């Protein structure tokens, strides 16, 4: 049982004991230990907590006035009642404890309120009064306590901690006149009517007559005889039933039933977990037995390398397919950029690789320094927060696009080659060229998987894996460098003055003197190396062949 429960039970019981004493009713302001005033666009709420842990909540929200969860009435947002309530909260903000209690208790309905709002305001006033004016009722006529042995009350209070919680649970919600019997047996004789709630603690209650109220038995026994009748509930807390021959209109409640249900559910849950664990362990053991992992013998053993190789090849093919899909997307949405990157990688592979290598080394420092530079000023901190994940993401994207561009170049190269299995690669289709290149770049890995079928070729398989890894790293470096050089394909690299398209246009538009063209005599300065322009001119002539 929690400490707060214990406190509550003790307070409840002590209050119960105190009720035995004749008291004059008097009122005083209750101590407010906690206050919360919440004001928002559509809500204005006051929450108070008192020293006895009771609470009061009055909430104006969504057009409704709610007190302790019950709708008291309605209000017009922005109307007089709303304004009056907010004004009250405005005063409450600055006050605490006694002054706060007095101010709230003294609050009266504003004179300008009329009609329904005034009615709701009166109810709020009443709720505040009830909660804040601590009235100790004279309850000699409401509660009677009968104790056979005065010591038994103390024993009940102090003898068992759990009993206090039990009593609290059993008495929860009872608000009628209560007759409490501690440590004694009670008899409701036949033909008699007892009004109010009958509470028997550590005793037996025998009911032969009628009880117009509830019967609560704590740590005792119920003997409901034939003809006995209870109009309300019968609550049994750690109590047993001797006879149940009469009638109970409100039903029979075992306040420990919830706990027992919880324990039962917990037990079921634990049992289920244990069963699952045992079943899983058994299944794993059987699986291991089937695999022959214990003794290394299995009928599947010879096929395992084949299965592994097929799995590896399949994995590579899926990777190629996935990369091809990304490549298709790149071609569709950034085809021109990919062209520029691929062209740069093809024309300047060494330069691209160097730039890619340098870029790779600088990635981490740039990332950290960028984050620091942005984080130093609080204004840029949100940018720094975005920088931290986005920069690595952009770098990965650049490497991927670069790799795809290099794959396309590789595919085009394979298409030009005379290898028999490259006939399906077409340079005219960028995607097919890229797929061909991907297959080519990963061919070492695929070959390694094929060789891994034979354990004696494991060394060659390892070498092929190494070769494939080197090829992949070089391709990524070249591609990444090309991406950096071309600013993600937005800036075309300048290689030389020669532009085939421009040269073709110039050749088509120029007038050629047939005679000069056919003249076999050497040109002026013939024999010496032609100038750059001469190179270009030679290149312009497609038929020139050699220079081109």
């Amino acid at each position: 049982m929690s400490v707060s429960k214990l406190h509550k039970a003790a307070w409840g019981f002590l209050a119960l004991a105190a009720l035995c004493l004749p008291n004059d009713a008097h009122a005083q302001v209750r101590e407010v230990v906690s206050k919360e005033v919440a004001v928002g666009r559509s809500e204005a709420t006051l929450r108070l907590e008192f020293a006895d842990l009771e609470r009061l909540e009055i909430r104006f929200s969504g057009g409704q006035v709610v007190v302790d969860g019950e709708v008291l009435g309605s209000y017009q947002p922005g109307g007089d009642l709303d304004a009056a309530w907010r004004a009250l909260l405005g005063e409450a903000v600055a006050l605490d404890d006694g002054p706060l209690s007095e101010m709230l208790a003294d609050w009266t309905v504003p004179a300008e309120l009329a009609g329904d709002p005034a009615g709701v305001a009166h109810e709020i006033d009443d709720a505040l009064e009830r909660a804040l004016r601590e009235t100790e009722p004279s309850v000699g006529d409401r509660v009677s306590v009968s104790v056979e042995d005065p010591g038994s009350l103390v024993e009940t209070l102090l003898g068992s901690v759990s009993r206090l919680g039990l009593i609290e649970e059993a008495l929860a919600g009872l608000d009628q006149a209560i007759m409490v019997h501690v440590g004694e047996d009670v008899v409701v004789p036949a033909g008699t009517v007892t009004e109010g709630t009958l509470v028997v603690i550590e005793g037996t209650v025998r009911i032969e007559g009628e009880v117009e109220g509830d019967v609560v038995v704590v740590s005792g026994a119920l003997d409901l005889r034939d003809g006995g009748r209870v109009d309300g509930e019968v609550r049994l807390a750690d109590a047993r039933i001797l006879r149940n021959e009469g009638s109970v209109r409100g039903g029979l409640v075992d306040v420990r039933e919830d706990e027992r249900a919880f324990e039962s559910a917990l037990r079921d849950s634990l049992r289920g977990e244990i069963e699952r664990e045992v079943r899983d362990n058994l299944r794993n053991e059987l699986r291991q037995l089937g695999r022959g992992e214990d003794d290394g013998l299995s009928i599947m053993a010879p096929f395992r390398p084949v299965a592994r190789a097929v799995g590896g090849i399949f994995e590579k093919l899926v990777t190629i397919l996935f990369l091809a899909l990304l490549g298709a997307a790149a071609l569709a949405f950034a085809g021109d950029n990919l062209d520029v990157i691929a062209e740069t990688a093809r024309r300047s592979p060494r330069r691209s690789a160097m730039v890619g290598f340098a870029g790779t080394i600088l990635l981490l420092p740039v990332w950290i320094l960028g984050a620091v530079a942005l984080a130093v000023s609080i204004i840029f901190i949100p940018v720094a927060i975005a920088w931290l994940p986005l920069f690595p993401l952009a770098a990965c994207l650049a490497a991927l696009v670069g790799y795809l561009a290099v794959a396309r170049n590789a595919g085009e190269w394979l298409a030009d080659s005379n290898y028999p299995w490259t006939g399906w690669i077409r340079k005219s289709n960028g995607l097919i060229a890229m797929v061909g290149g991907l297959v080519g770049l990963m061919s070492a890995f695929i070959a390694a998987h094929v060789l891994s079928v034979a354990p004696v070729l494991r060394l060659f398989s390892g070498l092929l894996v190494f070769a494939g890894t080197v090829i992949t790293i070089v391709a990524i470096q070249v591609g990444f460098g090309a991406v950096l050089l071309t600013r993600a394909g937005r800036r075309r690299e300048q290689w030389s003055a020669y532009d085939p398209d421009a040269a073709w246009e110039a050749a088509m538009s120029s007038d050629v003197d047939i005679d000069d063209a056919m003249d076999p005599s050497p040109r002026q300065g013939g024999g010496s190396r032609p100038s750059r322009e001469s190179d270009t001119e030679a290149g312009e002539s497609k038929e020139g062949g050699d220079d081109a």
Partner: protein
Amino acid sequence: MRRIFLAAALAALATPAPVLGQSWRTVTMSRQLQGHDQLRVAVEYGAGRLTVRPLDGGLLYRMNLRYDEDSFEPVAELSGDRLHLGVESVRRGINLRGRESGELDLELARGVPMDLDLEFGAVRADIDLGGLALTDLDLSTGASESVIDVSEPNTSRMETASFDVGAAQFTMRHLGNLNAERIEVDAGVGALTLWLDGRWQRDANLAVDMGLGSLELRVPEGLGIRLRKDSFLTALDSEGLVKRGDVYESLDWDDADRRVTIDLDAAFGSVAVVWVR
């Protein structure tokens, strides 16, 4: 600050009609002192402005909070000796709709012995722990601009005060008033300024672990300091210190009434010792 907050609260109170696009809520919470012997106080705040100050009178705490009710909800829970204050997020993600930020103005009772755990994210924090009876202090912040002051001596003795700073401009004043035997500062990146002034009631140890950034130690004349440095690519401006073996010591180290040993572990950045009168 409190006046501004109160004015904002009163303005909200005086404006019952809803304003379109506004979802700000103002909450004032307080709780009476009820003979608390020792408390464990946890304060959590995500983003906005944070103020913490000591509180006089019979209250345990008073909290004024302005927050976006669509994203957060206030927390003020006292359970046994645990007090949890601040806001909790009720929606995932960051609300980027508005540039207006929330505010938390928190006052904590003087004289109540407490283990204080402050955790805040991207905030501008102005925290004064002066006069509180701190028996333990843990402060953790993400990306913030924070000024932590201990304007009056701590009335309780503290074994360790820990500060975990992410990326921040972080200033701490009157560290001597913390009355701590050991002060640990773990900083990620940013600018860190530590004022070693205040009333040192005993010799103490200050451990600073800094990733990347600048550290400025402002040391009052008369306080003896010994600096042990374990750093990588970190520049040290050790004005007023003499090197003896592996450590740097202030000139009056042997004669100083109070001595602070500083263990510095830094990766990249700069460290400067500035003497103040």
